[in-house]
């Protein structure tokens, strides 16, 4: 390597040096990085407080270089509300899995979004309860096998997967609601933009913002990491369309 080396991609400042406990190929790591890069680029790290969920990312505070608190399962939006209302000058974000946000935490996220709380939620949808060993989530795909649906999700008994972005977008209170994914570099690049915008809107005190991100769980899906990315393309993406569902900067309907 000769002179004038130029690092064009490196670990963001908002991340610590710790090695994550995530399984090989788990895209939680990618999403962490996108959040960290957004904080870096917007210069928010020193004012940021993250709220950890209960789920595989419960130890997220070990991986970030910003203040963090750890919520009860599903209640991160309530913690974020409490914090942000008391310190409106800070930047607050929750990072939540699909069991956390779409199952036990349904009430809290809907109401935080509806009140228009000025924080940002990163919603990691991997269609399963990762941490507890692969049980069915409300977002589990029809016929997907999990440890509590060994014959596959039966939609006649468990209903269809919940599309949180669509559900939250019905609320009239202005907000930024989008869905991205991280199963290809292109999607990662696009999702980064969504996450960064979500934080920018918070920083401008505009609205509540939430980015749902389709993610993988190679371990509990029982599929190798690259196969898992493919599984997102084949199974999740068609059911969970990517895009911006609500945007305070666009007129109603413009984005859809």
């Amino acid at each position, binding site marked *: *390597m*000769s*002179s*004038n*080396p*130029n*690092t*064009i*991609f*490196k*670990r963001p400042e908002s*991340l610590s040096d710790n*090695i*994550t406990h*995530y*399984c*090989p*190929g*788990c*895209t*939680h*790591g*990618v999403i962490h*990085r996108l959040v960290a890069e957004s904080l870096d680029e917007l210069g928010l790290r020193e004012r940021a407080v993250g709220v950890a969920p209960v789920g595989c990312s419960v130890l997220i505070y070990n991986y970030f270089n910003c203040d963090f608190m750890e919520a009860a399962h599903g209640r991160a939006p309530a913690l974020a509300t409490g914090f942000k209302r008391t310190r409106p000058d800070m930047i607050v974000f929750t990072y939540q899995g699909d069991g956390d946000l779409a199952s036990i935490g349904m009430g809290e996220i809907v109401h935080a979004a509806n009140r228009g709380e000025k924080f940002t939620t990163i919603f990691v949808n991997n269609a399963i309860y990762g941490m507890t060993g692969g049980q069915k989530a409300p977002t589990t795909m029809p016929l997907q096998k999990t440890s509590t649906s060994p014959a596959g999700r039966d939609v006649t008994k468990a209903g269809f997967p919940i599309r949180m972005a669509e559900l939250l977008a019905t609320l009239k209170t202005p907000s930024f609601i989008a869905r991205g994914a991280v199963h*290809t*570099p292109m999607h*990662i*690049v696009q999702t*980064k933009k969504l996450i960064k915008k979500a934080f920018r809107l918070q920083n401008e005190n505009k609205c509540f913002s939430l980015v749902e991100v389709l993610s993988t769980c*190679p371990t509990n899906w029982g599929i*190798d*990491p*690259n196969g898992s*990315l493919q599984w997102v393309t084949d199974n999740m993406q068609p059911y969970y369309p990517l895009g911006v569902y609500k945007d305070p900067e666009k007129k109603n309907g413009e984005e859809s």
Partner: protein
Amino acid sequence: MPGIRIDKKYCKGCELCVQACPMQIISMSKEINVKGFFIAKVHEPTKCIGCRICAIICPDIAIEVVTHGTQYIPFEY
């Protein structure tokens, strides 16, 4: 001339970079790191175009991309 550095400490051998690299120049080595993972390595470093795709997809931020001189950046990130 661009190139990547894979930090052995972070690599978990998931092979996402292997499949993602458009130049197909990353492969799995026989080397095991402290955590017991086989780590990825670049087998044809000179072919690297510095596209950053491997780094972007790596969930463990094991990859740094460097360049010497000017580098065409194909997309904003």
